[in-house]
């Protein structure tokens, strides 16, 4: 009996260009945000997502047709796409926003991704992205996208196994109590976690020969308007300040002094 023809899987990996994790950030003088004139690189959680997509293809071999990466960002985000292409993605989409535009919010990103997925003639079976971006720590995009598309979702994934014949994915999630195992029907949205004890994976280096090859891989440029999506922010940032500086502690000589200092600070005792 011949096996039924399986449609090849298409994987979409949304990535974000964020401030590099090693940079010491500062609030800008206008107190509207942080100084963005610093080194940026791919969001580390998204690096893990790209690596996982490439590993899924290595495991499933011919069952995966393509890995496409997409980013929504200013012109410089093209470099981040090139790194992902050098890690093993096949093609890229750059939804370009002007340098002066504010960073899009998760809902805007999710709507843009929805429009993009609906545009893909060959469909998308797996969307895999980082669980959160290290600049806004929102952790919402994957979940919002699943809601908009009506697809299954598995967030904070620490292990992913795809079964293309049965069109399901077995995913292990990190939850407060430990680990949860899910079986999700494709198409599925997966967000990747960074686990201390056992990493989902260790992203490979983008080697120089691969970076040079990546320059020849196609990058499609679009705008949000072309996709019919309005990504103007709905939230207004009023003020950004640094946390209050730590004031040094003081030593007290005896219990009476301790009680006096507690009273000064406004703590009163009550008889039990």
């Amino acid at each position, binding site marked *: 009996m011949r096996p039924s023809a399986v449609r090849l899987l298409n994987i979409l990996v949304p990535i974000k260009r964020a401030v590099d994790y090693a940079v010491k950030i500062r609030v800008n003088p206008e107190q509207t945000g942080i100084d963005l004139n*610093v*080194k940026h690189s791919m969001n580390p959680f998204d690096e893990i997502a790209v690596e996982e997509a490439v590993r899924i293809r290595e495991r499933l071999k011919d069952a995966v047709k393509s890995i496409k990466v997409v980013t929504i960002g200013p012109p410089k985000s093209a470099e981040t796409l090139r790194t992902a292409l050098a890690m093993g993605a096949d093609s890229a989409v750059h939804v370009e926003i002007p340098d002066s535009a504010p960073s899009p919010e998760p809902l805007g990103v999710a709507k843009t991704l929805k429009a993009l997925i609906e545009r893909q003639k060959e469909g998308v079976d797996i969307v895999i992205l980082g669980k959160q971006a290290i600049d806004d720590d929102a952790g919402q995009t994957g979940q919002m996208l699943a809601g908009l598309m009506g697809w299954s979702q598995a967030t904070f994934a620490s292990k992913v196994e795809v079964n293309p014949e049965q069109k399901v994915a077995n995913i292990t999630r990190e939850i407060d109590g430990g680990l949860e195992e899910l079986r999700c029907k494709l198409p599925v949205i997966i967000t990747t976690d960074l686990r201390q004890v056992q990493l989902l994976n260790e992203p490979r280096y983008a080697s*120089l020969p691969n970076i040079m090859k990546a320059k020849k891989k196609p990058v499609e440029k679009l705008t949000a308007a072309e996709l019919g999506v309005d990504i103007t922010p709905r939230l207004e940032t009023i003020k950004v300040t640094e946390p209050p500086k730590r004031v040094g502690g003081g030593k007290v000589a005896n219990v009476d002094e301790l009680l006096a200092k507690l009273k000064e600070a406004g703590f009163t005792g009550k008889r039990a």
Partner: protein
Amino acid sequence: MLTRTVLRSRIPNLNRLLHSSSRISRQLFDPSTVERVSEDVDVCIVGAGPAGLSTAIRLKQLEQKLGKELRVVVLEKGAEVGSHTLSGAVIEPRALDELLPDWALRDDHPLTQSATSSRMRFLTKSLSIPIPHPPQMSNHGNYIVSLSRFTAWLGNIAEEIGVEVYPGFAGAGVVYTDDGSVAGIRTNEVGLDRLGCMKESFEPGMEFRARVTLIAEGAHGSIAKELIQKFDLRRNSDPQTYGIGLKEVWRVDPTQYRPGEVVHTMGWPLDFRTYGGGWVYHMADGLVSIGLVIGLDYANPYLSPYKEFQRMKHHPYFAELLSGNSTRIAYGGRSLNEGGLQSVPQLYFPGGALVGCSAGFVNVAKIKGTHNAMKSGMLAAEAAAAALSQESSSGPADMSQYETALKNSWVWSDLNEVRNLRESFHTPLGIWGGIMYSGVDSLLLKGRTPWTFRNRARLTDAQRTQPAYRFRPINYPPSQPPLSTDLLTSLTLTGTNHAEDQPVHLRVRKDGNENTALRKLHVQRNLSEYAGLLQRACPAGVYEYVEDETAADGWNGHKLVINSQNCIHCKLCDIKVPTQDITWTVPEGGGGPKYTIV
């Protein structure tokens, strides 16, 4: 063979080490058997600084003249172009005007702040006395910039014009032909663990085979060091001497901000025997660059450049400048060359040449080297283009025309005028002798003297260090935030980091040998004779001599700990360690500081 579970029970925290690949089954990397990807290019340039990028841009400009396309590749160990570039900086736009005559029309150029004044002050512990300065230090027509930003801007221009720039990839070694000439550059390996074994992510470095290889690594480059030794490029010149420049950028209180003001200081906190001086440059956008350069020929091993810099900020002149609503936003350090004309080596070797500070063109009187570095790059490009246009020539490219052109250019006369000034500080009169001589030579004679002071004894900076017993430890004041801080707090501002599990890039190595006996000897000599100089001198806290009775490579209950992750690639250790047994090698590309505004 130990299983994972057995190991886990015996050694705590092993989980983090094991990840997904078993450590035990990793193989040691053997450079002689590895196969490398090889790519042919016309010109390979190591270093995307002002010199390297000027070379690349000039080469692309000459393409049209040549009538054929040139493939130009620039390798840069920093994560981005500009990440490893640090300087004062007040630059003379002379070379930029020649390279890009219409630079002022580009709307993103960083030369937005002209230097409006130029003053010199002599500092005592509490006073700052205005003194006259050599005419070379007048800054009419010059610009105050962040050299890191300037370099990033040049990098964009280079990419626009078709240069292939690869940040995050270091030039790790030279590829030689069978006859010993230079055939190209190989990049660093990635994915080696701390013991030199290959991890799952291992990829060997690749080779760029180029007809012309140009080294633009900046002061005391690692490949330049190898080539200078191999081809004996210093046989007719004096050893190079260096200074260490430590720098901070502050956003000062608006009442203290005087855009365009350029001030240089001498005297306090340095004593009369130590060459050096401070600077204050008021940049654009309310920022002020301050710093201290100390000649690395200092004799007292107890000297700590970082602590000298921190205590200088408490001088009333600086304390006032940094008072009020001010924030420190950057810190960094880098060696710079001070040897001048007498220390310029032979610039070419079979198959390539040295450009920029790798050769050493800093004008010490002007305290500027960018204009000479850029011009040297442009001249090298012209010579390279000429060498490449001879299609039929076999054998390594001959870059001797570059040296001839440089000696006939304004770079040479620029350096010639001030050639005696730095060397005049090498007398028992210390800075007094230097100031007196320099005053006469620069103001009246303008370098038109029949004599040229030479370093006949060929003393290097390391050799000028004297044993600790001749000095008393310097009592530096404790740091007083927010004006001065401890070293590690400052270090976080550099953004420096290196991937943890990789070979330590600072090698205890002499004449190519590394072994436990050498490490022991290093600890013995440095602790007993030089009071642990490296621990005081390194501006990033890399070197520590710690107590450890059990260490196999220790001496007298102490061992050397190298915190290579902190390294900011300043090269001070390679230059100054009195035992000359520290060799700076490139770490995995992309590591190191992430400067943007210095």
